[in-house]
């Protein structure tokens, strides 16, 4: 049975009101913590390192009070692609890949297919990294309003405006991009409902389902884009009507202020990420 409510599947970028420690942190702190740990994740290739990172990010999500089910429901639509990628990695990546902390061992070899302990490690580590990044993104976007993220970003980029970085414009672009995600989901829902109401076969079941789905998506893209452009034009008009002129001399309603918790979070995440980076090659396996 078809379900048109795509908004239900979009969990990343959706602010959930709450009053946890994480919610109360300054957005700049959260963005920095996010960046620090993301760097640690990017450079961590060992099992040990990733186990530590999964545990740390998991406990942070638990601390934020966002439900695990909600965090994971966001990746449901992506699961088929993840499985395909993982399978390709497992089958084709084994040759010449040296696993971290152990001797190379080939489990299976036939033609271009190499399954080694290296490719197994790669798949498992990739999966763990994926989960870590998912946790981090959810941590930032589920606990911070879009307005605050933008505000924080703009604030952090401001020092660079001396060398010509348009900090206000950049953060505005990011905000609008994020804001359009749920709008596009809603629009997709409306178009699909309109097509279904006029006899389009949305929930087609059968052998060639994959092909028909792809064709249907192609039919949806054009009206979706036309609508996105129309909305963008409306947005320009609305901004001009309110005399929007850009970042120069613009004051803001909310003044960001660091509290003691922010310094603690900053220091802890910086030290943690530094340790993870420096010792990334010292883990036993």
């Amino acid at each position: 049975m078809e379900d048109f409510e795509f908004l239900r599947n979009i969990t990343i970028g959706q602010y959930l009101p709450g009053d946890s420690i994480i919610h109360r942190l300054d957005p700049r702190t959260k963005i920095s913590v996010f960046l620090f740990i993301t760097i640690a994740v990017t450079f961590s290739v060992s099992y040990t390192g990733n186990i530590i990172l999964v545990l740390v990010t998991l406990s942070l999500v638990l601390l934020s009070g966002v439900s695990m089910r909600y965090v994971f429901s966001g990746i449901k639509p992506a699961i088929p692609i993840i499985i395909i990628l993982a399978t390709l990695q497992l089958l084709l990546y084994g040759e010449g890949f040296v696993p971290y902390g152990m001797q190379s061992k080939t489990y299976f070899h036939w033609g271009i297919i190499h399954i080694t302990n290296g490719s197994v490690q790669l798949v498992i580590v990739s999966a763990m990294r994926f989960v870590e990044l998912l946790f981090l993104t959810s941590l930032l976007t589920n606990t911070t309003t879009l307005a605050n993220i933008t505000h924080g970003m703009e604030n952090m980029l401001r020092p660079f405006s001396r060398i010509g970085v348009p900090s206000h414009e950049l953060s505005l672009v990011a905000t609008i991009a994020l804001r359009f995600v749920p709008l596009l989901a809603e629009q997709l829902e409306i178009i699909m409902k309109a097509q279904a109401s006029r006899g389009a076969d949305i929930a087609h079941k059968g052998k060639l389902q994959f092909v028909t789905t792809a064709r249907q998506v192609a039919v949806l893209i054009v009206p979706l884009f036309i609508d996105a452009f129309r909305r963008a034009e409306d947005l320009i008009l609305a901004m001009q009507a309110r005399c929007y002129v850009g970042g120069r001399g613009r004051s803001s309603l909310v003044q960001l202020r660091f509290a003691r918790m922010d310094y603690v979070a900053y220091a802890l995440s910086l030290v943690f990420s530094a340790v993870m980076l420096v010792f990334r090659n010292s883990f036993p396996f």
Partner: protein
Amino acid sequence: MSREPFIQVNDLHHNYLRDTPLEVTALRGVSMEIHKGESVGIIGRTGAGKSTVVQHFNGLIRPREPGKVIVDGQDLSDPQVDVRRIRQKIGLVFQYPEQQLFERLVGDDIAFGPKKLGMEQADRRERVKWAMEMVGLDFEEFKDRFTFSLSGGEMRKAALAGVLALQPEMLILDESTSGVDPRSRKELLGRLLALHKEHGLTLAFVSPNMEDMAGLVDRIYVMDKGRVVMSGTTREVFSQPERLREHGLGVPQVTEVAHELIGRGVPVERIPVTVEEGEEEIWKILNS
């Protein structure tokens, strides 16, 4: 009127964003019945759940336990049901027409439904022509126009034509005629009413505006906060302005005037719901 209702809705509940922390309740136990050949109004202020209910009628939203939606004898909670056939029988025109035109050219957009029905090219052309005439869009002038270059009112007409082209047994208009200029609106509704009277087209109008309903519908369901709070014939519902006001709704101006007259001790025999009826009543009072 057949005894078995065409659409039967029983204890319908619906939550948007189900299973997420942002879940919102839209329906809290709605029951309705619509018979073949009837013209029914569903009114309520914004957020009452009107659009959610009508999307159940053609299976865009499927009922969840314990709710039941039975359309023409078929239970829509059964996943095996052929919803495409249901959707051909029950045409739904949405609230925002500019969001439901998805082809490039007006003619192609209206032909989408007939094409999906597997009609031949020549029949399709006839069908599109008929549908466009019904809504008052000139076939030759509009068929090759870009859908996104239409004005708001024209878009509404085109969207309506796209649904009419399926020749449904029932037509649901979800605020689909607001924004159409008064004259074309009157013509359009006149043609729909003709279809209703001559061919037994079942009609359902969804609107927050009472004025829209007067003279169009036989029965009214009033919704508020996800429930049906009042129901009855148009006259029955309009004769209770206080209760309607409680639910954030008004009555047509002419009905308002009649209630005002009664309040000042003028005997009004029959509460009018249309301007014509009002005129008749006032003549009666003046002549007596």
